[in-house]
């Protein structure tokens, strides 16, 4: 053999009797798999079934399901409609634009409750949405079987996601801590007109409109026409969804570090 390799463990596997070595290896494997091959008989045995993992996968000595932690598998979402606050964070965090917020019954008519509707034909199962969900109501379960015969069956309405939630599948237990130095919603005071849009639409009700004193009219200066209120954000309740920024008609709210 012309080839030399610098190796710690030299592969001393030269042929014996032309083909004896591979045939012996195959025969050894044959004997090993005669009783229980590594195959998982899929519709009847499932890797995510903890009983199967313990009894067969580990006990048989075969390399089936070694190193499985199934709780954090990213499969179909589970949505708890009851705790959803319609913050839209899942929609905005979705890199594949597969989440749409649809109205579900339960909100007041002025302020409809919106929950995510997920199109699994577009979703890439990256988990950004469940990471982004501030309430933990959108999580990912271990369910992965999603074959349908109609394309439209792949769109899961909030109610359907809620049904998945009710089945109590193992759900992703990893919740990411919020960063320590989160930005806050800051107000560009001169631009604000006190319209209450931000406080009205805040999903966590963490914005309160506080009265501010109406300034005295000076000579040659016009008092701007506005409501004399100003939003104050409670940072500990804020989930940083940015709804207020987007609804602000004057673009006077912005992200920044609170001094």
């Amino acid at each position: 053999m012309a080839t030399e390799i610098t190796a710690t463990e030299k592969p001393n596997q030269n042929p014996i009797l032309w083909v004896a070595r591979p045939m012996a290896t195959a025969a050894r494997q044959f004997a090993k798999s005669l009783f229980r091959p590594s195959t998982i008989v899929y519709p009847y045995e499932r890797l995510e079934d903890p009983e199967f993992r313990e009894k067969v996968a580990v006990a048989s000595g075969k390399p089936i399901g070694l190193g499985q932690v199934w709780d954090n598998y990213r499969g179909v979402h589970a949505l708890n409609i009851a705790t959803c606050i319609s913050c839209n964070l899942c929609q905005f965090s979705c890199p594949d634009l597969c989440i749409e917020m649809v109205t579900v019954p339960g909100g007041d008519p002025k302020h409809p409750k919106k929950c995510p509707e997920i199109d699994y034909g577009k979703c890439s199962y990256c988990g950004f949405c469940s990471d982004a969900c501030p309430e933990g109501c959108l999580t990912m379960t271990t369910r992965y079987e999603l074959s349908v015969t109609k394309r439209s069956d792949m769109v899961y309405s909030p109610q359907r996601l809620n049904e998945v939630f009710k089945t109590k599948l193992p759900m992703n237990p990893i919740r990411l801590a919020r960063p320590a130095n989160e930005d806050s919603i800051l107000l560009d005071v001169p631009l604000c007109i006190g319209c209450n849009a931000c406080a009205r639409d805040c999903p966590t009700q963490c914005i309160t409109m506080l009265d501010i004193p109406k300034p005295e009219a000076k000579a040659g200066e016009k008092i701007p026409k506005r409501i004399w209120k100003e939003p104050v954000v409670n940072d500990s309740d804020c989930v940083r969804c940015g709804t207020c920024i987007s609804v602000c008609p004057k673009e006077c709210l912005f992200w920044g570090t609170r001094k």
Partner: protein
Amino acid sequence: MQPDDLTRVLAPKLGENLLGVEAFEGMAGRVRFRREAALDLFRAVRDDLSFAHLSMVGGIDWVDHREVFYVAWSDSARQYVLLSTDVPATDAHVETASAVWPSANWHERETWELVDITFDHHPDLRHLLTPDGYAFHPLLRSFKIHEPEELEVKTRHV
């Protein structure tokens, strides 16, 4: 190898066509040059500085002009070097590097079709990734990918 070393070798060869050598983290330096001296620079970099291995050729569309950059590796210095030149958007062409480094062949084909920078005297300037006859240059900033209705999903309607 430091940027100064690069300047010392390249300045006499290129003269005023060498626009400068900047420091670049993790690299020997970033050489900016005028496209007129491209071939001289490639030869100098390969032969005098021993960057024998051209890794990457790419283009950036800066709207008003375009930039072509080359990354080369030297086995003796164990370092990369970044060469870049600006070409005007209206007349985007530069001399090919495939005469100096054969590996530039496919990279330049790709850059030509995606960023619309022509490489003069290229031996085989055909479409590589896009279909034959594809008339667009997708990596130009003027080329938009999203359809409006797709963006619709993303806009906020509260």
